[in-house]
């Protein structure tokens, strides 16, 4: 009872910190000065912009919304004028809205960065841990899915829908209106200074929250899957890769004046890998840049096929990947919301392989364009990049990928959109030692495996006919095997012979050999 109170207190603290965090966006004032403008712009642009922005310099706005509106108005007016006069070289292509808004923010938030970081992010984390750590304390280790289907949060109730809408909103702001969330980025400035030596962008903020979400909800996984070594190890792995490879190492690289680089991100998930600015970055960064480039290419042509041959795509999707890391931790409470119907599988196959084709074609054009010295396609690839970035990189992977957790499950992106998952899946389906073995005739068709499959695989369909599960989409999270009440499923790497049996025979009946 005592512990229950403590847990409720933890939840209360978390929610209070979250509320304060959101209120921060509406606090303080926004006032751009000449000095601030000079800080965020290049010297030549400063000279141009100072007179243009004269009307708003020194003016105090009470919201980032009002400030950025005016900023964009005057900034845009200048560019429009140049474009109308066809003075293309005088157009300022850099977008200063975020940087200017951030610099303009003053007052309560800007003056109390560290204190507010502690009161929101740190306190929220502490509250969440206080709620999570005592979980299942007096219970023997085992599957903890009681009341999942009665939960408003986990079962598309009002709370789930509100949470989904909130997450979608956050992603829309992050991708398209970062100037509205400058106050949040101010909070993590001290951390960013410490790691990379520079101020925090919206992406640093995102990385911080993302990593924290994986770590805190990873701890929840440890509690939930206590006694299950596969789940515990796998969760430790995604926590490690997110914290080091995706968060700390890239920032430290920036500190060392090298390009921000995530060594475990692989094309085509890392769809900008062959873009000219990335390639130039690699080539201009000495031996470490060369290492990034060669390592990245080796991962694509050797790492993916070899590792997937030996271990299935799980080596990446549920052990290493950042998207997978979030899905497997923060997304775990929503895994059962994935659609198991045959229809959904049809949509999935067309969609995910469609994105793969899109990514491959776009990259090939980019490379051809690069080598032809931008003669052949000119700026046309840029348009393609913009569309891919908008549709796939932002809208699909971000807004839908995470925002839809409480609505369509935690692997919407991985299942329907990730081109790397599609590539890994093709290897897994056609040339791999990985399968989920069905244990003879022990299946009772209960449906726990299918229900809790985040990839929407109807695992039971195979298990109840004594057939091994070999599916391109399986990320090898192992939850089907964990929730099976009769010990029917086992993730295994083994000989390719007998891996796929089209017409299985159910063990146990000697009267007839049943062709399921």
């Amino acid at each position, binding site marked *: 009872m005592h512990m229950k109170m403590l847990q409720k207190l933890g939840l209360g603290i978390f929610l209070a910190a979250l509320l304060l965090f959101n209120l921060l966006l509406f606090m303080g004032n926004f006032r751009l000065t000449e000095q601030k403008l000079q800080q965020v712009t290049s010297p030549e642009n400063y000279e141009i912009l100072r007179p243009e922005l004269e009307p708003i310099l020194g003016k105090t706005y009470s919201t980032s919304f009002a400030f950025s509106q005016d900023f964009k108005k005057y900034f845009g007016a200048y560019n429009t004028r140049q474009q109308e006069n066809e003075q293309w070289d005088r157009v300022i292509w850099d977008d200063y809205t975020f940087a200017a808004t951030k610099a303009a923010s003053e007052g309560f938030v800007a003056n109390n960065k560290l204190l507010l970081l502690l009161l929101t992010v740190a306190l929220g984390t502490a509250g969440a841990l206080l709620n999570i750590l005592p979980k299942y304390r*007096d*219970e*023997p*280790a*085992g*599957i903890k*899915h*009681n*009341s*999942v*289907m*009665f*939960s408003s949060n986990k079962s598309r109730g009002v709370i789930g829908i509100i949470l989904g809408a909130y997450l979608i909103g956050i992603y829309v702001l992050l991708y398209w209106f970062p100037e509205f969330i400058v106050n949040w980025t101010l909070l993590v400035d001290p951390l960013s200074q410490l790691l990379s030596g520079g101020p925090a962008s919206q992406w640093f903020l995102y990385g911080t929250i993302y990593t924290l979400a994986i770590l805190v909800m990873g701890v929840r996984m440890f509690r939930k899957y206590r006694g*299950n*070594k*596969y789940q515990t*190890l796998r969760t430790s792995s995604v926590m490690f890769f997110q914290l080091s490879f995706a968060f700390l190492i890239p920032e430290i690289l920036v500190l060392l004046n090298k390009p921000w680089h995530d060594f475990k991100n692989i094309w085509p998930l890392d769809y900008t890998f062959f873009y000219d600015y990335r390639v130039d970055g690699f080539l201009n960064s000495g031996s470490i840049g060369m290492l990034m480039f060669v390592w990245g290419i080796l991962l694509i042509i050797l790492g993916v096929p*070899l590792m997937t*041959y030996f271990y299935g795509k799980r080596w990446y999707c549920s052990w290493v990947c950042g998207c997978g890391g979030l899905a497997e931790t923060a997304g775990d409470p929503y895994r059962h919301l994935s659609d198991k*119907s*045959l229809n959904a599988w049809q949509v999935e196959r067309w969609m995910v392989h469609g994105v793969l084709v899109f990514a491959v074609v776009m990259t090939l054009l980019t490379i051809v364009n690069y080598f032809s010295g931008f003669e052949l396609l000119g700026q046309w690839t840029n348009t393609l990049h913009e569309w891919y970035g908008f549709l796939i990189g932002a809208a699909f992977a971000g807004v839908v990928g995470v925002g839809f957790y409480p609505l369509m499950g935690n692997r919407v992106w991985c299942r329907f959109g990730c081109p790397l998952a599609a590539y890994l899946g093709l290897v897994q389906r056609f*040339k791999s*030692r990985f399968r989920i*073995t069905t*244990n*003879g*005739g*022990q299946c*009772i*068709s*209960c*449906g*726990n495996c*299918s*229900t809790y499959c985040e990839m929407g695989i109807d695992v*039971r*369909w195979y298990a*109840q006919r004594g057939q091994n599960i070999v599916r391109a989409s399986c990320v090898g999270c*192992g939850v089907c*095997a*964990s929730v099976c*009440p*009769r*010990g029917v499923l*086992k*993730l*295994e790497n*083994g*000989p*390719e012979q007998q891996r796929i049996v089209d017409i299985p025979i*159910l*063990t*146990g*009946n*000697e*009267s*007839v050999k*049943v*062709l399921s």
Partner: protein
Amino acid sequence: MIEAKPIGDFCINSRGRRIVIIGNGIAGVTCARQLRKRDSAAQITIISGETEHFFSRTALMYIYMGHMKYAHIKPYEDWFWEKNRLNLVHDWVTHIDFEQKQLQLQQQEPIAYDILILALGSKSNKFGWPGQELKGVQGLYSYQDLESMEANTQSCARAVVVGGGLIGIEMAEMLRSRNIPVTFLVREQEFWDNVLPQEEAKLVGRHIREHHIDLRLGAELDKILDDGTGKVKAIVTKDGEEIPCQFVGLAVGVSPNIDLLRNTALEVNKGILVDEHFATNIPDVFAIGDCVEYRTPPPQRRPVEQVWYTGRMHGETLAHNLAHQPVPYKPGPWFNSAKFLDIEYQTYGQVPSTWEKPTGSFYWEHPDGRKCFRALFDEEKRTLLGINAFGMRLRHEFFDEALRNGTTVEQVLEQLPTANFDPEFYDKLYPSILQAFNQQFGTSLQPRKKKEKKGILSIFGL
């Protein structure tokens, strides 16, 4: 496939024959699916008053516990039936006219058949306790039982579950998932000890208590008391103890559901009497699943078997018999599984609760008291007779083969690494199992694992 006889002597074999199955459980549905594969012209109808669609009966508990919804426990999507031309009738059968070959239904028009398959399932036992018809007293078998359990436990300060078997422990687990205090009355001296050997029964008993279930061993129900409004207010045990409660789960076994067939021409005893082909005494009428009683049980089998797997095998075999070639029912080595709260249980072959020479036993228990392994074997021939595994997973195919081939207990134990089905990275249990065996029998068995080619060249099949 031996002792086959011509199908024409066995049942009506006309094209487009009307095959009607009463019951959409695992036996009836398996039979219908397999029939459809082998006879594309037959008109196949499945009648059930319980639910429109087939669901997994063993999964009903998970709906109550909130692990799944009803839709999740349906093994096939709803379009499956029409696509496979399996005609579903959602109604109760009220009368069977074996002369006219016609069924009366509660709501809908009568249905005529050429071949009738009875897959009627079971019903919960009630042993005439005073108060057993009170509101809040029920068994758990059907979907309707689940609905009434939901309604009956809405405001429940304490529940009593009577009967130490699989359904009893399920009901206790279900109630605990809603934080309802449970008193669990088990007549035997240990949980399910008419099936489990003492050590296993004790292991489960400990685990039940670990889940804060008030387990009362050697306790029998005497009567159920009325609160004055027709609802249960308490139970009284044979020892005279009164336990106040608002819900009583009766889980004292199930019996074939054959009330429909009492006083008809169909021969019944405890269940519907069938021969080794599942034929009843009436031509073109067959019976499968829980409702069946074998006239001559297969070797080492009981006359009535009410298990998911046997129901499925009945369905498979009868479909083969009706559509292809009649063969006698010949189940392979016995297997079963269950989950007692968090502890999984698998059994292969014959492990009765007690045994005598020349049967020998080897028992190993993990120091944590939640995992154990037992092998029974013939002390003279050394052949394996059966195994029980708790808290560990073992391969069905491995033991199916070992039991059929008369593999010795020593060979089986040496191959435990191959038989192991636990998830990757789990602690290996076989070294300490083997060590215990070596100590007990003075052997020096070593684990053997099939060598498997592994390495970079295996990609190219080298």
